[in-house]
């Protein structure tokens, strides 16, 4: 087990290097530091001196990959690639283009993101599985048909509609909770309710339909027929046999997103004014702060790889047939 985990982590390194090279290519080669400076300082009327000053302050004035003027190991280390990309491996994100410490910002903004994403994820998952089981129980009836139709209709509604509609209905018309904002501690609960409800409803349609398919696939298998032949009630078959076996395909989709919960949801956080990592990223995109976007790309990839690893490990926990080698 331990050796498997170690080997998987070693395998992750080339992928992270790949991500790093891609972001480096995107942000420094395709798009030179001069362009970044011009974009930040204003379009046309900007002098070369101002650009050089901007680049100097952020350390973007070094050569890209190989410093000919430096000595010995400095030839490699005193470059943009080394000082901006390689150090990401130590999770040292450096400063944003506007001069703030990115690592500090991330550590501060992680928790609001989690406060929204975690309830959406857990409650949403429970609701989805419950509803999907009910629909699977009534398979082939009118209830099933109409449930699937409702799911497809819910999937076809833009997530923006759920957010705007929720804000308008619950926040503006009924005055139940504030439309947007955030606060720490128990006072903050009133800010969290609305985004959580909206997030859950938004993902319900697709989720129920997807889990229903999984359950139906499981119901068609031989062991279910055996269970019925033993004289078990339909309910026992569904909740004991089918649910437990369907957990394996469900896990594939669920565990991989667990670490990503830290990243938050871009749209929800922006709409509800939650100071999480999602709105952090959106702000960075809109302010065209390349350093933050670069850091978030790297962080997101790391979390995704952790999610893949967790998925594999969780397989062994739920399915004894799977052995890690």
């Amino acid at each position, binding site marked *: 087990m331990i050796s498997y985990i170690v080997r998987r982590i070693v395998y992750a390194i080339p*992928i992270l290097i790949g991500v790093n090279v891609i972001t480096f290519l995107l942000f420094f080669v395709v798009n030179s530091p001069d362009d970044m400076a011009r974009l930040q300082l204003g379009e046309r009327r900007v002098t070369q001196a101002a650009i050089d000053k901007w680049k100097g302050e952020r350390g973007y004035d070094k050569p890209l990959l190989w410093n000919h003027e430096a000595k010995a190991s400095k030839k490699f280390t005193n470059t943009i690639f080394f000082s901006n990309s390689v150090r990401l491996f130590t999770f040292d994100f450096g400063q944003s283009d506007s001069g703030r410490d990115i690592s500090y910002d991330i550590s501060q903004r992680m928790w609001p993101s989690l406060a929204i994403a975690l309830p959406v994820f857990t409650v949403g998952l429970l609701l989805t599985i419950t509803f999907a089981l009910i629909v699977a129980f009534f398979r082939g009836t009118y209830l099933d048909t109409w449930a699937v139709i409702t799911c497809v209709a819910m999937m076809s509604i833009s997530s923006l509609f759920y957010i705007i509609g929720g804000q308008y209905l619950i926040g503006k018309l009924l005055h139940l909770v504030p439309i947007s904002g955030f606060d720490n501690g128990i006072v903050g609960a009133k800010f969290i309710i609305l985004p959580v409800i909206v997030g859950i409803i938004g993902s319900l349609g697709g989720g129920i339909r997807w889990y229903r398919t999984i359950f139906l696939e499981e119901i068609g298998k031989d062991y279910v027929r055996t269970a019925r032949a033993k004289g078990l009630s339909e309910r026992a078959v569904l909740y004991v046999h089918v649910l437990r076996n369907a957990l394996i395909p469900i896990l594939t989709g669920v565990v991989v997103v667990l670490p990503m919960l830290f990243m938050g949801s871009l749209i929800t956080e922006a709409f509800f004014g939650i100071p999480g990592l999602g709105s952090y990223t959106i702000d960075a995109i809109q302010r065209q702060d390349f350093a933050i976007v670069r850091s978030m790309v790297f962080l997101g990839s790391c979390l995704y790889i952790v999610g893949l690893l967790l998925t594999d490990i969780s397989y062994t926990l739920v399915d004894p047939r799977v052995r890690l080698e």
Partner: protein
Amino acid sequence: MQLTLLATDTLFFGLLIVAIGYGFYASKHEHLRAPWREVARNAVAIGAATVLATFLIIAVLDSIHFYPRLAQNDVSGETQLGSEVISLFDHLVGPMRTQVEKTYSAPFALYAFSKETIELDDGLTKRDYPRLIFGGSHLAGIDDRNGDIARLSLIGMTWAGLIWAVWTALLLGFISRAHEIPIARAAHNVFFGEFRVPYRTLLAVTGIITLTVGICVALAPHYHILGTDKVGIDVLYQALKSIRTGLMIGTLTTLVMLPFAMILGISAGYFRGRIDDVIQYLYTTLSSIPGVLLIASAALILEVYMSRHADSFTSLVARADLRLLALCVILGITSWTGLCRLLRGETLKLRQVDFVEAARAFGVSHTTILMRHMVPNIMHIVMISIVLDFSGLVLAEAVLSYINIGVDPSMESWGNMINSARLELAREPIVWWSLLAALVFMFVLVLAANLFADAVRDAFDPRLRVIN
């Protein structure tokens, strides 16, 4: 009038030609005809396909661009061309495009949404809601409005009914010819749904669509059916123009994605070894970057490129169009990994199958095996993923435009409409029409696409055939 082809137009028409070619090819081959026949017998699929076809027609009309001839000719007798590119659709809806008000107005309004200082005849001024320049300008006052709307709608409905009757007669004629039964018998059978093809659904949906279009055509020259937006542009016109944007994103992205996914996926599964390792590494790396962030990074870089090469774009339309194309390319590059993984798995299975082994034993070349044995046998996966991805892409466009990394702000799109309407929600009374129009149009398109995709998947997926 001088025709001009924008970059996306060329690709879109290319895609249409390919689709028509596929249709001919499929109609000649029984193994492709069978699943499509199954789709055609599904009432929901027929209804959805009719709605999609309507959207497609509007998008095609909106993709034929030209420089219009200006009304007044030069003294020299030369015909002057307008500097602005418009599409055939713009030309057809004429008044809807040109009747621009000053600012917001509610659906069917006669008066503007906000008060203004109006100069009276006697030189005095007062603050009141001014009359709209075009909306209901033929009426004396608000009292005449409902009657006028009813009258115009009735005219529109009559025309729509006539057109629908002709279409129904043509269809019945076709059916009676094909089944060699009298027309009355055909009509009876259609009405009671006794054919395997759900003609009744087809007629009902086309009926609803013709009625809606008829009423809109009758009302649009005189009213702003869905109101106007901040700069006074008709919201219905914007929503209709957005159809092209949505369809472009949904189809061109697939066009960009397919070569990557197919070539890499099939070669990884077929050749295995080093090639497989490299391709697997490539897609794992790409898919480990969160999609939105990759799109955002690419869009930021595009922005820089655009501002640096601002001079090389001949017109605003061409610039917006290139940005749309770039967005499709970006979305395509970030979204091929899923399909690639599926195709690799399927090819791995296929290469073990007897007929492939036999082909290899006969010494058939790799290229021939790939083209004759692999590609036709994975096409059902490609087909399913094309239709399934479409609706997701249309929805993604709205979200991306909201974060300002979507299509050009000057281009009509549902995302841009929502984005600009969002700011006005705080107003009292609320400006809801722009938002609702965009959301409803998007909902109809995506719902139709989802329902159609389901039918296609059910017909093409051999695994589902076993389950059901």
